[in-house]
């Protein structure tokens, strides 16, 4: 009996949370036009969300590409197909690894920071203070951060994939001796702009939306104590990771599968 009570309780609580987060999202989205008209706050947030994530994204992209080049070369050379290294590296980066790994890193680097910042604002009653001064915290705090995450994610993903392809080039062509021409030409012959690049960009836009939503809402919904903020930050990273991987499967099935 106790078990069912807890199950019911958890279900109701998670539905209530889903409802609160949907209200929160519509509220934030309705505040976005105001942010676009006054972009100063947005630029500040683009700096802390985008520019500060630049380094981790580019360096990770470089190393992921280099490892792909190395591993791909060893497997492909067994079949005498080293020349197809370019398409292997580029396809895995553009279709899957780019959007997913960049999003996971972004959730860890920027999403957690957003949650902690907003959770702390709530714990120190800055959000209530703003409301007292008739400033809408959704407009002033949430909407610029949401938009910054939404804009940064596709740009960071494109950087990740491009630099990864360069990393594969450094290892494959520079060190292991794959032909430079076939590295690029196999890649161009095998990857389609519409099917591969655009779908990768769509994925990253969806992930950016999801991460921004999750991290802002977790901060806004945090219990206003130091423990509550710490838990909210953890939830942001965990929930973002689940959401990214789940959404990635669904998007891949829709885009590349025949489902």
């Amino acid at each position, binding site marked *: 009996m106790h078990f069912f009570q807890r199950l019911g309780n958890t279900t109701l609580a998670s539905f209530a949370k889903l409802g609160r987060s949907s209200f929160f999202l519509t509220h934030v989205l309705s505040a976005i036009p105001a942010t676009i008209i006054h972009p100063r706050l947005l630029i500040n947030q*683009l700096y802390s969300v985008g520019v500060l994530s630049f380094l981790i994204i580019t360096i990770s992209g470089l190393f992921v590409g280099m490892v792909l080049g190395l591993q791909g070369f060893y497997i492909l050379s067994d079949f005498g197909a080293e020349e197809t290294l370019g398409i292997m590296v580029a396809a895995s980066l*553009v279709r899957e690894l780019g959007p997913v790994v960049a999003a996971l890193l972004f959730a860890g680097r920027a999403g957690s920071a957003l949650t902690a910042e907003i959770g702390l604002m709530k714990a120190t009653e800055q959000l209530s203070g703003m409301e007292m001064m008739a400033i809408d915290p959704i407009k002033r705090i949430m909407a610029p951060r949401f938009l910054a995450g939404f804009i*940064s994610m596709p*740009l960071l993903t494109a950087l990740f994939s491009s630099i990864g*392809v360069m990393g594969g080039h450094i290892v494959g062509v520079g060190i292991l001796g794959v032909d430079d021409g076939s590295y690029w030409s196999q890649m161009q012959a095998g*990857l389609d*702009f519409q099917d*591969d690049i655009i779908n990768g960009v769509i994925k990253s836009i969806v992930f950016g939306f999801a991460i921004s939503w999750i991290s802002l809402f977790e901060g806004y919904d945090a219990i206003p104590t130091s423990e509550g903020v710490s838990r909210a930050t953890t939830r942001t990273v965990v929930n973002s990771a689940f959401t990214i991987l789940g959404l990635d499967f669904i998007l891949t099935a829709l885009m590349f599968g025949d489902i």
Partner: protein
Amino acid sequence: MQNTKTQDTLVGLFVASGIVALFFMAMQISNLSSFSDNSVYTVTARFENSGGLKVKSPVTMAGVRVGRVTNISIDQETYESVVEMKIESQYSFPDDTSASIFTAGLLGEQYISLDPGGSETLLAENGLIDITQSAIVLEEIIGQFLFDKAAEE
């Protein structure tokens, strides 16, 4: 806290580098630079067997890629494979051009190779290539070879 100008510059650089990366993906990684949809014409060829030919397989002339396969279907009356391909409009061929399906390398992907004829008139939009040579199916050749060997002995 950095001053506003440095911050603006860094944000500008970030957005610019992101856009450059997107552009790089479009032009260098994918096939956007080499093929665009707006200047193509469609021709059709009928094959007895189109083998492992797929949509987007290349169409070549003398080893140069001139187009792509866009659709493969089956004709219910003749049981032939109907292959539709888009050829870039800068290339034109006589209407008695023949099409063959070859394999790049021993196990590589299959492609259509066009061989020009001597006719004066050119293939037009929605033209039909009459002379075709089907894909070579490896199993059939091996089977044929074994059969011939057995017959010799």
